[in-house]
């Protein structure tokens, strides 16, 4: 076990993938000498060369589009999109090509492309640097979408994503990059929990609280605070957003009878809606209350002085937990 930051854990995972498979190549803006704006690729170009860690011109569609061509040639490209809000120029290549080529070619052409995206807010950035665009991609068939909440998962799941023969969007919670944790670098990713399985973070009996990415830490903190009030929260870290591991969530909700889902992305059409609907379909007779969503607002990501109002924090999550439990809460007395 080694103490390392979230960013360093991904870096170490990328390094292993580069070492283990000569077909792995990294593409992105500023990922070479600079090591990426978040230093996630620090030192990799120096050690693996400019042909495997490639600084590209500034064109996101081309970064993804050339990754498609490399995959056609048998490579396993790992693409870095510098910030969440910069992914949209590549949207067509992701949705129309990366996601569909395996289907289009009836399985003849594999697209083992990993698209790394630092996402989410809370770092005081200007516009386009704090978005949570995951639902665009969870809605797109042909893609797998994962996110991680701790350095160990960051380290393991990046390797699993790269070795997966399907395209994977790998969302990195950028406000957690500097958080430290224990990482077992010797853990074989093939022996670890598969990336499409959710994880129960804390056991509980009263409410199931589903979170992912940056809000897993917030949810865990909320569970600790709630315990002081005698409320037992079971926190689930989804890890995989497409597909969602409903087996784990269903088992929890059948035990607790209550569901709260939280994410930074806006509410309408978000992943929380999908989770709430699917759990309602599968657990209707076990539910004691309607599922509750605690999410960002349906607004463009706000200027940084107000971002903490937009982002679900510990107290807003607990307010949602109170709603699910029928305890007094900020909406008590309101109909619907």
């Amino acid at each position: 076990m080694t103490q390392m930051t979230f960013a360093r854990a991904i870096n170490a995972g990328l390094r292993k993938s580069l070492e283990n498979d000569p077909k792995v190549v990294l593409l992105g803006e500023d990922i070479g000498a600079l090591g990426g704006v978040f230093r996630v690729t620090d030192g990799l170009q120096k050690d693996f060369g400019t042909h495997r860690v490639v600084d590209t011109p500034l064109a996101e569609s081309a970064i993804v589009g050339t990754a498609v061509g490399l995959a056609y040639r048998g490579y396993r490209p790992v693409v870095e999109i510098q910030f969440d809000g910069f992914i949209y120029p590549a949207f067509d290549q992701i949705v129309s090509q990366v996601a569909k080529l395996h289907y289009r070619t009836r399985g003849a052409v594999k697209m083992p492309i990993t698209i790394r995206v630092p996402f989410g807010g809370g770092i005081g950035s200007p516009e386009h640097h704090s978005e949570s665009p995951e639902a665009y991609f969870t809605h797109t068939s042909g893609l797998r979408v994962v996110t991680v909440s701790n350095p160990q998962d960051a380290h393991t799941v990046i390797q699993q994503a790269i070795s997966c023969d399907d395209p994977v969007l790998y969302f990195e919670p950028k406000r957690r990059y500097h958080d430290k944790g224990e990482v077992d670098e010797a853990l074989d990713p093939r022996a670890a929990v598969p990336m499409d399985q959710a994880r129960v973070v804390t056991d509980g009996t009263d409410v199931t609280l589903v979170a992912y990415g940056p809000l897993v830490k917030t949810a865990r903190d909320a569970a600790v605070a709630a315990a002081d009030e005698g409320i037992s929260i079971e926190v689930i870290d989804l890890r995989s957003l497409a597909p969602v591991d409903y087996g784990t969530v269903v088992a929890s909700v059948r035990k607790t009878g209550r569901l709260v889902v939280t994410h930074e992305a806006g509410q309408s059409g978000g992943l929380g809606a999908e989770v709430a609907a699917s759990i309602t379909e599968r657990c209707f007779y076990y539910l004691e209350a309607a599922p509750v969503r605690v999410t960002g607002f349906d607004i463009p990501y706000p200027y940084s002085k107000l971002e903490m109002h937009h982002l679900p924090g510990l107290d807003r999550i607990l307010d949602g937990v109170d709603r699910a439990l029928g305890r007094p809460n900020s909406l008590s007395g309101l109909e619907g």
Partner: protein
Amino acid sequence: MGQRSASAPIAADFTGAGGPAEASGRAGGLVQLITPSGERVSHPEFDPWLQDITDDHLCSLFEDMSVIRRIDVEATALQRQGELALWPPLLGQEAAQIGSGRALREDDFVFSSYRENGVAYCRGVDLTDIVRVWRGNASSGWDPYSINMATPQIIIGAQTLHATGYAMGIQNDGADSAAVTYFGDGATSEGDVNEAMVFAASFQVPVVFFCTNNHWAISEPVRLQSHIQLADRAAGFGIPSLRVDGNDVLAVMAATRVALDRARRGGGPTFIEAVSYRMGPHTTADDPTRYRDANELEDWAAKDPISRVAALLDRKGLLTAELQQQVRDKADAVAREMRTGCTTMPDPQPLDVFKHVYSTPNSWLDRQQDHYARYLASFGDPAEAVSEEGAR
């Protein structure tokens, strides 16, 4: 694929870009080796690239072009007869497709648009596979690796990036093959095509940008896409370019060989503008009489790519009745094979709709497939499940 130093050979090649094109033998600003009346024009810069082209080769190029025109006519007929949902004719572009397609090596890889069925023919495609997509039986006619040609791209220009990425892979592998991407005049306005040229130039990868300027992007004339000649755009990217008569099979072949040779020698990308004309509609669903002048069509009919090779063969005394019969027989046989393959193609099965979305099991989709299989099983005949009147 790392960036080259400032001393990359491109600067030298770049001035060379205008070299052959600006030498003698230009007709209307185009490199031309066969005039519309079938006269072989000598060209000191391009002729060396055609030294191996014997009379037999010329006859076989004539046959190839005749065959793909026959494929095109047959496919159009199949669409009119309800056997195909749609077809994008290549009529008039036979020289551009055969001249370039026959310049390729087996280990080169093609990333084309949906109109390059003549190139697919050169790659050795199974004739049934040409029409599979247009019958609605699959989204790809063939396994791309079986003929080293990607599934033709429908999103305009997107494939140019795939070719560039593939060429980055060739460069990494240290191979001497090339990626060739085909696109039209309309595609040159797309961001992807411009980004592909930026990447290809920066990394100096072995890719050939083959632009068939057929003058029309559905109803939009090429002048709407560009105020300058398309080939001249390449200069802005630092990519050498060639502008050739796209209805001249030898000029196209020579230009493609020049570009491929540069790619194989590590000289980076080349942009070829093959000036041709889309004699037919954009697709069988299009009506060009709404937007273009019949006189324009007549002008281009006089520059027909097959007639001029026939005229050249005639001048050489090679256009014998025997050759013409042999070509007709071949074209008829190919058309028959394609028609039979088309009409006897087995329909896909309902649950095939779920196949190959992922290459590994996916819990969401597996559940949907399971539920739909149960639903289908509740009908005697799965066809009843999708009848418009319903079965209830």
